[in-house]
């Protein structure tokens, strides 16, 4: 069990920071060869040096650049077993009344079209595995797929959309006889560097932290490693019968209401 992912090849989008970077570390730690994408070159170089993973700059919504990335992965390792569609944004998003068309389009492009392209190209690559179509695809949705935010309409809508995408792709792969599993994870508030920045930029960082921590009945945010634990499990053969599932990892935030 030491190296559940030995010999497997993984692709992580948005892997330079936050949940994606933690997933790169964990997948490498369990023995996988990892390719990751993103836009932050300095962070990427540091992560490559630390883990031995490989980086390609890629805008996930850019359909034309996907075939080249997949060829690079296959040229390097000859196969693809794991894809973590993690890249996401809320940049330009607002409430239903205030959201502009550019903001909407930007979030849809990255969170929805980008995930579609990731899954589509991952399946195409996994079909080329020497033993036939095999693999595990994990989509990073959000608890806001089931509990939408009033001030982030596009984010909420796209995170719900990719849950349906996971199920549709899972059913399709089954119907085609591919041994490719597709699942969505729905994290609650995770203590990413971005959230830390937001907290530290406030007049009272401690009070802001308390607000974030209070969102989960568990009374704290998720740590990055806790999300990668679930990603690694779903990526491994241990999860061989899990497909088309939505898995909440949110410290009971969406389980129901707090008592009085």
């Amino acid at each position, binding site marked *: 069990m030491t190296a559940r992912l030995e010999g497997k090849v993984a692709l992580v989008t948005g892997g330079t920071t936050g949940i994606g970077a933690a997933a790169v570390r964990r997948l490498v730690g369990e023995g996988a060869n990892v390719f990751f994408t993103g836009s932050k070159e300095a962070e990427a170089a540091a992560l490559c040096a630390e883990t031995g993973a490989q980086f390609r700059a890629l805008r996930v919504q850019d359909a034309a650049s996907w075939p080249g990335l997949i060829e690079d992965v296959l040229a390097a390792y000859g196969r693809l077993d794991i894809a973590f569609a993690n890249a996401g944004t809320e940049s330009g998003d607002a409430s239903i009344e205030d959201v502009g068309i550019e903001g909407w389009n930007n979030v849809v492009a990255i969170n929805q079209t980008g995930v579609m392209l990731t899954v589509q190209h991952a399946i195409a690559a996994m079909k080329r595995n020497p033993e036939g179509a095999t693999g595990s695809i994990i989509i990073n949705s959000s608890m806001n797929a089931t509990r939408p935010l009033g001030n982030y309409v596009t984010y909420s809508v796209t995170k719900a959309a990719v849950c349906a995408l996971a199920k549709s792709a899972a*059913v399709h792969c089954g119907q085609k006889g591919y041994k490719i599993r597709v699942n969505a994870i729905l994290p609650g508030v995770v203590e990413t560097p971005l959230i830390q920045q937001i907290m530290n930029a406030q007049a009272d960082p401690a009070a802001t932290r308390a607000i974030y921590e209070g969102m989960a009945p568990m009374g704290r945010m998720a740590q990055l490693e806790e999300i990668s634990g679930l990603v690694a499990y779903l990526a491994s053969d241990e999860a061989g019968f899990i497909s088309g599932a939505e898995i909440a990892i949110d410290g009971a935030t969406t389980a129901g209401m707090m008592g009085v």
Partner: protein
Amino acid sequence: MSDLGTKRLQGRVAFISGGLRGIGLACAERFLAEGAEVVLSDLDAEDSDTATATLARLGQAASYVRANVTSEDDWVRAVQAVQERHGAVHILINNAGTDLTGAVETLKLEDWRKIMSVNVDGVFLGTKHFVPLLAASGAAVKGGASIINVSSIMGLVGMSEVSAYNASKGAVRLFTKSIALEFAQKKMPIRANSLHPGFVLTPLLNAGFQRWVDAGAAEKVQDLIDSMAATTPIGRLADPAELASAAFFLASSDSSYMTGAELVIDGGWTAQ
């Protein structure tokens, strides 16, 4: 990377109801392989052939206590046994379950009450009586103690002529969410999640399918297994070991932020 490596449940004690067969037994085998100590319970007498043969095979780290999950006295005895043998418990799997099928107007009230008492009362009583020991033991392990309640995909979606089982497994699903919120809110070191297996090759499934065969729904059990495999996107039924690996994930520190969640292991059956 402390969660990597073998023996990831070293130093932990697990209690598994319905542990002599099927999913419960597979969980016991996996937990033992990960270094846990395991106490099984089931209906069979403590000196029964099944209990003694199973323990002989599982080895020193496993022990058994006879307990009917519908009996509060039996739960009190089971907790005492765990307390005496280990002084702690970190993992509780409320797995014992039974099924019932048939047209709703033909169901007998006593059969309805029986399935509710095993599948629902059993989960309630197990939780109620183990919570103090789980709370006392949970702080010592990363992610706290873990309660895993075995519901079913039949706790998520309805099926014709499965009303009683549907109702019982739906109850397990929401009971689990409520206790997860309760423990979190009180800062008790206990997580609670529900497991939702699809069709798993176990004695329970065989017996259930045999009843459909007896009722004329198919010629033989294998035909029903084949047709279930055909309607499952992954194209096959689950092996109990695949449920055990899911239970292991929920029991381990790797799932430390998961509570009140549902883990569906159904080969895509409910995604369609």
